[in-house]
C-alpha cells in the first residue's frame, strides 16, 4: 500500500473510510459519546437512589448537555468538523433525554417509575461495556495505534475494518432506538437473564438484535487484529520486541474471537424464544403473574443462558482490562524513563491470563446450586487467574522503582490506575469463593468491585491513553492544567462513588433496588451513603467537562509539539509523523533493531533509543 494522498470524496474519506486511523477516530468519537450517554443514564438513576420518589429536576441534567453542545457547535462558526459532530450529538442527546424523561410511561410528574429505573440500569451496563469501553479500548486505540506500533501500512483487511465499525454503529443505534418502543428499552439487567428477559417488553428484542450486530462487529475486528499482528509486523519486529500494548490487543482479539460466538448463539436462541415461540430458556411449569404459561411452552433451561452469557462475559472482563494494562504499560515505561520491569513475565502472564479467562466463568453462578464439586473447580481456577493479574500489576509497580518519573496528566491517570485496579482485583477475591459469595452475591459489593476494575481502572487507563496519544492525532498536546483538574476531580469523585458501595454491599444491601434499600430494615444504617455516592457521581460529571473542553480546545489551541513529544521508543512515535500520513502511515517502511522500551541505556547520549534506530 502506498502512502501518498488519494483524492477521495468526503464520504469515502471520512464516513465510509477504510483507513485504520479514520476508523479508529470514528470508533473513538462514537464510543466516547456512548460513554457520556451511559454515564448520563446513571446520573439520572442516582437521583432516584439519593432522593427516592422525589420529582426529578430535569433541567439541571439536560441544560449542561445542551450548553456544551451549543458551544461546540458554534465554537468555530458552524464549520463542519469533529467539534460540530459532537456538538450536534450532544444537542440531540439533550433532546432525546428531555423527550424520554417527560413521557408519562417513564416519569409521570417527573417521578421516576421503577420500570424506567430498570431500563436505565440495564442500558447503563450495556452501553458502558459494549458500546463504550470495549469499542474505545479495542476499536479506537487498537485500530489507531496497533498498525503504527508494528510498522504496518494499515490493517490487514481495510474493508473488514470498515464493516466492523458500521456493524458497531448499527448495533448502537438499535440500542438507542429501543428507548422509544412500547415498554421502553430492555429492562432485564445487562445480563438479560431468562426467564425474565424471555417475557420482557419489546425493548429486549431490540437489545438482542443490537447485540448480534455488536458481536458481529467484534468478531470482524478481532480476526483483523490477529492477522494484522501476525502478518504485517515490520522487519525485525519479532514477537518479543512487540510493545506490550500490542500484546494485550493480540490476546484481547483471541478472547473476542473465541468467547463472543457462544453469546451470539445464545442471543439468537433468546430471540427465537421471544419471536418464534421456542423454549430454549423457558422451563416447564413456569407461572407468570399467577398464570401458568401455555402447555406447549417449556422444557428449556434458564441456566443455559447463564452459562453461555458468562462464557463470554468473564473473558469480556479481560477484554476491558487487557488493553487498559497495555496503555498503562506504555505510559509508565515512557514516563519512568526505564524499561518495563519483567517484560517477558508480563507477556507470559497475559497469555496465561487469556487462557485462564475461559475457565472461570461459573464463579458468577455459585448461587445457582451447581454443586460443590463444580464450585470447587471454579474457585480454584479463579484463585489461579489472580496470579497472572498480580504478576502484571506487580511488574507495573516495580517499573516505577528507581525511575526518574515525569508527572504529567497521562502518567497521573496511569499511576492512579494501579491502586484502583488493585482494589478492584482484591475485592473480587471474596466473590470468587463460594462461601463468602453467598453473602455478597447480588449486593452493592459486586457493583463496587467491578466498577473499581472498570471505572477508575480501565477508564482511567483510557484517559491516560487519550492524553498520551493526543499529539499523535493532532500534533498538539492537551492542556496540562485542565488535564490535572480533570484527573484530581475524577480521582476523588470515583472513590466517593465506589468505596461506599463496598460498605453498603457488606451490610447486605442488594443491587438493582429501585429505592436504594429504603424499605429494607438492614439497609437503614447505610442509606445515607446513597446521597454521598450521588453527589460523587454528579461531581464526576462536572469534572468531565474539563476533559470535553480540553479535548476540543486543544485541537487548535493546544501546545504544538514535534513528532515525538514524549521522547518515546515505539514505532508509532519514532518512525512516522504527527498526524500520520494517509494511507501507508510511514514515509519510509521502518525496520526494527531493538526491544520496545530501551530507555536510559547505559552509554547512550540520549535517555531513549527508538526501536528503528540502528
Amino acid at each position: 500500500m502506498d502512502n501518498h494522498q488519494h483524492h477521495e470524496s468526503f464520504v469515502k474519506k471520512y464516513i465510509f473510510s477504510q483507513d485504520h486511523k479514520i476508523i479508529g477516530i470514528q470508533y473513538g468519537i462514537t464510543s466516547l459519546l456512548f460513554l457520556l450517554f451511559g454515564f448520563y443514564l446513571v446520573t439520572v438513576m442516582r437521583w432516584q437512589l439519593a432522593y427516592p420518589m422525589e420529582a426529578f429536576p430535569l433541567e439541571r441534567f439536560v441544560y449542561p448537555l445542551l450548553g456544551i453542545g451549543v458551544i461546540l457547535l458554534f465554537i468555530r462558526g458552524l464549520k463542519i468538523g469533529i467539534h460540530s459532530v459532537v456538538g450536534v450529538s450532544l444537542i440531540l442527546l439533550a433532546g432525546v433525554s428531555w423527550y424520554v424523561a417527560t413521557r408519562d410511561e417513564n416519569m409521570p410528574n417527573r417521578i421516576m417509575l421503577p420500570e424506567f429505573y430498570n431500563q436505565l440500569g440495564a442500558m447503563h451496563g450495556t452501553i458502558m461495556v459494549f458500546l463504550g469501553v470495549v469499542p474505545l479500548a479495542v476499536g479506537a486505540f487498537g485500530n489507531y495505534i496497533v498498525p503504527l506500533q508494528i510498522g504496518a501500512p494499515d490493517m490487514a483487511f481495510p474493508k473488514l475494518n470498515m464493516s466492523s465499525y458500521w456493524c458497531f454503529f448499527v448495533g448502537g443505534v438499535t440500542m438507542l432506538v429501543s428507548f422509544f418502543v412500547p415498554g421502553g428499552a430492555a429492562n432485564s439487567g445487562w445480563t438479560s437473564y431468562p426467564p425474565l428477559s424471555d417475557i420482557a417488553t419489546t425493548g429486549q428484542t431490540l437489545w438482542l438484535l443490537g447485540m448480534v450486530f455488536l458481536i458481529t462487529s467484534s468478531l470482524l475486528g478481532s480476526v483483523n487484529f490477529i492477522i494484522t499482528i501476525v502478518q504485517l509486523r515490520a522487519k525485525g519486529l519479532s514477537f518479543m520486541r512487540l510493545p506490550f500494548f500490542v500484546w494485550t490487543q493480540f490476546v484481547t482479539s483471541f478472547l473476542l474471537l473465541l468467547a463472543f460466538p457462544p453469546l451470539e448463539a445464545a442471543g439468537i436462541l433468546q430471540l427465537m424464544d421471544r419471536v418464534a415461540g421456542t423454549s430454549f430458556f423457558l422451563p416447564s411449569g413456569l407461572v407468570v403473574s399467577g398464570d401458568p404459561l401455555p402447555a406447549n411452552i417449556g422444557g428449556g433451561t434458564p441456566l443455559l443462558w447463564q452459562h453461555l452469557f458468562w462464557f463470554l462475559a468473564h473473558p469480556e472482563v479481560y477484554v476491558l482490562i487487557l488493553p487498559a494494562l497495555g496503555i498503562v504499560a506504555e505510559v509508565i515505561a515512557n514516563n519512568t524513563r526505564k524499561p518495563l520491569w519483567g517484560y517477558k513475565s508480563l507477556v507470559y502472564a497475559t497469555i496465561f491470563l487469556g487462557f485462564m479467562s475461559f475457565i472461570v466463568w461459573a464463579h458468577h453462578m455459585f448461587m445457582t446450586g451447581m454443586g460443590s464439586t463444580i464450585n470447587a473447580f471454579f474457585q480454584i481456577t479463579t484463585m489461579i487467574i489472580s496470579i497472572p493479574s498480580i504478576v502484571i500489576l506487580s511488574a507495573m509497580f516495580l517499573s516505577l522503582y528507581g525511575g526518574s518519573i515525569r508527572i504529567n496528566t497521562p502518567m497521573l491517570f496511569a499511576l492512579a490506575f494501579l491502586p484502583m485496579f488493585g482494589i478492584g482485583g482484591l475485592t473480587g477475591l471474596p466473590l470468587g469463593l463460594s462461601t463468602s459469595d453467598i453473602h455478597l452475591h447480588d449486593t452493592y459489593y459486586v457493583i463496587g468491585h467491578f466498577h473499581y476494575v472498570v471505572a477508575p481502572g480501565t477508564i482511567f487507563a483510557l484517559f491516560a491513553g487519550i492524553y498520551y496519544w493526543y499529539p499523535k492525532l493532532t500534533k498538539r498536546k492537551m492542556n496540562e492544567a485542565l488535564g490535572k483538574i480533570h484527573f484530581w476531580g475524577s480521582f476523588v469523585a470515583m472513590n466517593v462513588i465506589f468505596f461506599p458501595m463496598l460498605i453498603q454491599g457488606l451490610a447486605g444491601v442488594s443491587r438493582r433496588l429501585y429505592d436504594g434499600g429504603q424499605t429494607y430494615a438492614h439497609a437503614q444504617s447505610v442509606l445515607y451513603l446513597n446521597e454521598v455516592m450521588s453527589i460523587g457521581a454528579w461531581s464526576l460529571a462536572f469534572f468531565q467537562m474539563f476533559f470535553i473542553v480540553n479535548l476540543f480546545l486543544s485541537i487548535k489551541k493546544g501546545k504544538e509539539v514535534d513528532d515525538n513529544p514524549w521522547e518515546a521508543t515505539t514505532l508509532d512515535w519514532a518512525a512516522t509523523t504527527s498526524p500520520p500520513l494517509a494511507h501507508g502511515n510511514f514515509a519510509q517502511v521502518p525496520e526494527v533493531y531493538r526491544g520496545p522500551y530501551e530507555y536510559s541505556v547505559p552509554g547512550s547520549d540520549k535517555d531513549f533509543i527508538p526501536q528503528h534506530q540502528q
Partner: protein
Amino acid sequence: MKKSTLFLFIFFISNLSYSGNLTGKINFKGAAPKPQKIKMNSDAKCVASHKGDVISEQVVVNSNNTLKNVFVYVKKGLEGKKFPTPKDAVALNQQGCTYSPHVIGVMANQKIDIINSDNTLHNVHALPKSNPQFNIAQPKQGMKTSKSFTKSEVMVKVKCDVHSWMSSYIGVLDHPFYAVSDDKGNFTIKNLTAGDYEVEAWHEKLGVQTLKLKVTDKGATADFTFEGK
C-alpha cells in the same frame, strides 16, 4: 299547523322508543363461606393502614343472604347498536392495599383513573385476553394513571405484583348497560330500551348465570341465585 312543524312532529314520534330500568337482586343459597382474613405482613405500611382485620372481597355475602360484587350486564340483544363513550372517567382506587371498588364496569375506550392512595409502591398489572396488557408501577401516594381498553371483554383481572392479595375485576363493554351488585345484593341497569335480552351475572368465584328476559317501558326484574361451593 305548518307542514314543516308537522313533519318534525311525525319524525320525533317515529324515532321515540320506550325504555325502562332493569332491576334485580343477587341471592345467595347455601352456607356462607368463612370470611378470609388477608395477611398484609409483607408490607408494614399496609398493616398500619388498617386498625382491625381486613377481609377478602372475593366472596362477600351480605347480611340479607345476597351477594356483593356481582357484575351484571346485557350479553345479547344490543347487537349492531352504537352508544357514545362516556367522557367521565371511572376511578379505581388503591386504598389500604386493597382495590376499591373491587369490581367495576366501563365502556370500551372509557378512561379508567387508577389512583394510589397509599404511602407505598403499588404495581398495577392488568391481565386482559383480548386487549393489550399493561403493567405499571405507582411508587408514590397520590399518583394517578389513566388507562382504557379498546375492546369489550368480560372480565379483565387487575392485580398488584407487589401485594399478592390485591386484585380487582373490570368489565369492559361496548354499551352502557351493566351494573355491580351492592351491599344489599341489588343492582339497577338504567334506561334499557324495550326489547328481548339475554343478561349475564358474573361472580369471580361462583361463576356465571344467564337469563333471557323482556324489557318493557315499565322496566323488568331479573333475580339471580348463586349457590355456595
